[in-house]
């Protein structure tokens, strides 16, 4: 009887040793930011919710995306010398930015918000952006005290090498919003290989 117990303990010990070593040393023991499924891409025809009327321009102050627990202040962003959108300071992991020479969120046109997926310390403000689903709400607080409410139309991933500028940054005939972060695979040599882009349009305000 004692022999059986000893054998069981010996077996458990061996299994625990093996699995513990494997868990700590496994080469794929990494977790990556969530990436959107293909189903979050183009909406079905007629499925898009009706848009709301454009709001008067007012600079945004804060972005909230309740379904992925985002609630962050917004800072103004310009362009880099190369002409790409600048990014917020990487040190602050709960800070997003908006392109302040462009459209303010809520007025007619394409407003652009960007934030980090991670920084040197770990996950940042838009870490879960790739997990956002079509139909989710994005709320933008505005300096005039109002809130612009957007509804997500699509969540896409684009490689940096073939970034669709017109689709992402191009003018829109109605109030639209883009929320951008890094994504699309990661390699040590080149970093993140593209961007997750959320497409949304204004569906309400309060």
């Amino acid at each position, binding site marked *: 009887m*004692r022999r059986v117990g*000893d*054998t069981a*303990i*010996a077996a*458990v*010990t*061996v299994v*625990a*040793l093996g*699995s*513990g*070593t*494997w*868990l*700590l040393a*496994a080469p794929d*023991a*990494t*977790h990556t*930011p969530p990436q959107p499924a293909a189903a979050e891409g183009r909406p079905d025809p007629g499925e898009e919710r009706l848009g709301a009327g454009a709001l008067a*321009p007012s600079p945004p102050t804060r972005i909230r995306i309740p379904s992925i627990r985002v609630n962050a202040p917004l800072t*103004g962003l*310009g*362009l880099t010398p*190369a*002409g*790409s*959108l600048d*990014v917020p300071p990487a040190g602050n992991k709960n800070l997003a930015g908006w392109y*302040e*020479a*462009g*459209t*303010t969120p809520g*007025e*007619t046109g394409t407003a652009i918000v*960007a934030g*980090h*997926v*991670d*920084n*040197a*310390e*770990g996950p*940042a403000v*838009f870490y879960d952006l790739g997990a956002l689903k079509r139909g989710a709400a994005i709320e933008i607080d505005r300096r005039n005290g109002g809130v612009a409410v957007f509804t997500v139309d699509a969540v896409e991933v684009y*490689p*940096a090498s073939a970034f669709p*500028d017109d689709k992402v*940054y*191009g003018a829109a005939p109605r109030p639209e919003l883009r929320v951008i*972060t*890094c994504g699309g695979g*990661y390699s*040590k040599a080149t*970093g*993140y290989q*593209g*961007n997750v882009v959320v497409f949304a349009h204004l569906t309400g305000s309060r």
Partner: protein
Amino acid sequence: MRRTARLLTGTALAVATAGLATAPAHGGGVPAAARLRGAPAAAGTGSLQVSPATAVPGGRITVNTTECGARGTAIADAGSVGAGTFMLAPGTNEGEAVGEFRVPTGAQPGTYEIVAKCAEGDRQVTGDLVVALSTARMGAAHEQVRPRGSVKTGVGGALGTDPVQTAAGVAALAVAAAGGTWLLHRRARGDGI
């Protein structure tokens, strides 16, 4: 006595009147006079021309004036919009002082007065700059600058060993250590396995 008092009062009144009459020649009256003489400014006020008269934050603005004389220079102040002071120097056009500044990227929409003081004399001219958040309302002449390409919003700092997996591995090794210790004890007591 009464006569003296009246004389003093009369003198004081005369001095005060003279002061009022001459004050506009030095102070706030100059821009008004300059406005009458100057070329029509883009924004419609003052004789400091501001172009473009409407700009977005980050935009480059040129200002010029003909009010400072043939080889005149001036110190201009765009502090109202947060751009500080800058110099106006003789430009390519005869008798014109020209300078440049950039609208701070954090500038709020609104109308801002840009003031230029001629280096010689105390002539001062003003012009208005309208800062808009979007060029959509500025007409087709000013195409809105759009970003290009992808955005560098991550460094890979979130990539690493999954903390849950690490915890599971550590727990498993702890179990193995406990089991191993127990078995070694048994062997040391000579019970054998």
